[in-house]
C-alpha cells in the first residue's frame, strides 16, 4: 500500500514567483493490485505526484509512505522504495540507456546484483511478456516509438516492482499500439497483483481501470470508479476535461427522449447493450 498524507510540494522558485504549489494538500491511498487512471490537464500536478510516489522528489509538507517506509527517511529504505515503485517516463528515450534490447532489460537486474541465471530468466520472461522477442538482438535505436515504450516497461518490470507508474506512455505512440500496451499492463495487474497507476489525458482510456483520480490545479478533484467520476460533467469541464465521446453520445440520446439509457455509458459494448434494449 502507498499512502499519500496531506502532501504539499513546490518546485524551487515557485514561491518567489507567486506560483501556486504543484501539489497542495493531496491525500490518497493506492492498494495492492489496483489499476488506477490518473487524469488531468497540463500542469494539474499528475507528473509531480508520480515523481513523489517514486521518491524522485520529496514532499515539503506531509508524507509519502510506501509499504510502511517513508520516502523522506533516506538511507536503506530509499533503495527499497525505488525497487518497489517502478516509473516509466513519457518519452522512452529518456530512460533507455543501453545499446541492445536484451542489455536494456538486463540493466536493472544486473544493478540489483542478481545472479546470472536469474537475470537471464527475467530477460526471457520480459521478451515474451512485452512481445519483444523478434527484436531481442536489435539495437535500441532501430526500434519504433511503440517498441521503445514496451522496452521501457520491460526494463522496469524486470526489477519486479510492486507498483508500476506509467507517466503518459500513450502520448507518443499510435492509438492501437497504445491500447495493446495498456491491455498488457492491466493483465499484469490481474495476474501478479501489481498496482498500476496510468497517467493520461485521454478521457477514452478511463473505462477499463478500476479507479479514476482526476487532478486539477495541484489537488485531487474527483476519485472513484470511472462511472462515478464521469457523473460530474460540470466539474470535469471546469478542469478542462470533456466527457468521452461515447458518454456524450449516450447523454445526447437521453436528452432527445430515450430516457431509459443509462446516464453514464463507458464503453462501446455498454452503448450497444443499452441500444439493444431499446430495439
Amino acid at each position, binding site marked *: 500500500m502507498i499512502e499519500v498524507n496531506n502532501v504539499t510540494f513546490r518546485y524551487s522558485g515557485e514561491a518567489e514567483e507567486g506560483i501556486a504549489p504543484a501539489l497542495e494538500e493531496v491525500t490518497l491511498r493506492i492498494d495492492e493490485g489496483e489499476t488506477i487512471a490518473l487524469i488531468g490537464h497540463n500542469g494539474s500536478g499528475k507528473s509531480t505526484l508520480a515523481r513523489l510516489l517514486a521518491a524522485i522528489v520529496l514532499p515539503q509538507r506531509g508524507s509519502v509512505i510506501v509499504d510502511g517506509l517513508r520516502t523522506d527517511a533516506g538511507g536503506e529504505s530509499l533503495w527499497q522504495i525505488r525497487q518497489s515503485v517502478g516509473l516509466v517516463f513519457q518519452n522512452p528515450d529518456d530512460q533507455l540507456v543501453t545499446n541492445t534490447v536484451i542489455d536494456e532489460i538486463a540493466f536493472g537486474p544486473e544493478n540489483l546484483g542478481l545472479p546470472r541465471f536469474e537475470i537471464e530468466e527475467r530477460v526471457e520472461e520480459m521478451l515474451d511478456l512485452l512481445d519483444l522477442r523478434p527484436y531481442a538482438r536489435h539495437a535500441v535505436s532501430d526500434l519504433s516509438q511503440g517498441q521503445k515504450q514496451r522496452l521501457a516497461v520491460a526494463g522496469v518490470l524486470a526489477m519486479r516492482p510492486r507498483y508500476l507508474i506509467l507517466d503518459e506512455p500513450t502520448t507518443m505512440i499510435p492509438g492501437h499500439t497504445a491500447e495493446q500496451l495498456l491491455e498488457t499492463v492491466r493483465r499484469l495487474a490481474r495476474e501478479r497483483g501489481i498496482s498500476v497507476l496510468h497517467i493520461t489525458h*485521454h478521457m477514452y482510456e478511463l473505462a477499463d481501470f478500476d479507479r479514476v483520480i482526476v487532478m486539477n490545479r495541484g489537488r485531487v478533484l474527483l476519485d472513484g470508479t470511472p462511472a462515478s467520476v464521469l457523473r460530474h460533467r460540470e466539474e470535469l469541464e471546469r478542469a478542462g476535461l470533456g466527457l468521452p465521446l461515447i458518454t456524450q*453520445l449516450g447523454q*445526447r*440520446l437521453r436528452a*432527445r*427522449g430515450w430516457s431509459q439509457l443509462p446516464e453514464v455509458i463507458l464503453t462501446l459494448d455498454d452503448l*450497444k447493450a443499452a441500444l439493444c434494449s431499446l430495439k
Partner: protein
Amino acid sequence: MLFEVKDVYYTRMRGTPFAVEALKGCSLTIPEGKITAIVGPTQAGKSTLLLTLLGLFRPSRGSVLFRGQDIHQAAFDLEALRLRVGIVFQSPEAQLFEETVGKDVSFGPRRKKLSPAQSRRLVQESLEAVGLPYEEFRTRYIASLSGGQKRRVAIAGVLALEPEAILFDEPTAGLDPQGRQELLALLQRLKTERRLTIVLTSSSLADVAMLADQVIVLHEGRVVLSGSPRTVLAHAEELLALDITLPEITQIALGLRSLWPALRCDVLTLDELEEELVRFLPHAASQETQLSSP
C-alpha cells in the same frame, strides 16, 4: 497540379542486404492550394514519397512531375524546386542548428543574399505566422524552448524562404493533445492565409479527418485509397485492417455497425453520428409525448 507522381518505384539501401522496396508503383497527384494528407502505417513509404517529391531520392522507375515538368530531366532546376517547396522533417527540432531563434530563422534569407531589412521582415513575418512574437523570441536561445516551440521555429525557418508549398513529415508525432491541436490549426492558417499547398504524412486519420482536402492512403508502397476524408472513411473497416488509427467518432460508428449494418461510418463529428444513429432507433416514448404537446 503541383505534383504528379506516375508509377514510381524506389528501393531504399539498394544493393545492400537491407534493401527495401519502399515505393512499388505509386501514382498520385497533389493539387495546388489544398491540404493533402498521406496516411499509412509505419513502413508504408510515406517519408520516402515526400523525399521523392523533392528529388532527394531518384525513382528507379516512373516519374515525378512538378507543374508538368519531369524533375529528373537534365534541364530541370532541382535547386529552384527546393526553394519553392519547403520540407519540415520528422522531429524538426533536430533541423535547428543556430544558437538563437532569430539566427536560425534568418539562415535561409541570408543564404538568398537578401538585404538585412528584407531578411528581418521575413523573419518577423515567419515567426508571427507560427505564433511566436518576434520581439520576444528573436534573441531566445533554441535550447531554452519547449519541444512544441522548437517545432514551430523549424516551420518558421521554412516559411522564411517564401515557399509555395511545404511538405510535413509526421508533424504531430510526439505532441500532446493540446500541442497537436495547435499544430493542426497552424497548418489550416498557412493554407487559408498564405495560400500554401500543404502535404503532410500521418499514421492516424484522427489528426487529419477535419483538416485535409484530400487523403491518400498508402500501403506497402502503393496507393490503396484516395479522396476526400469522408470518401476514405467510408472504407473504415479496410483502414483498420491496415493498422491506421481512425478518429474516435468513426470507431464508435464502426462498432455500432454490428447492430445496424447500414449505419454510415463516414461521419466526422458527434452531431453527424447522432443524426445518423437516430434514424435507426425506435421512437422514444417520452419523445412522442414531447412531439404531441404544442
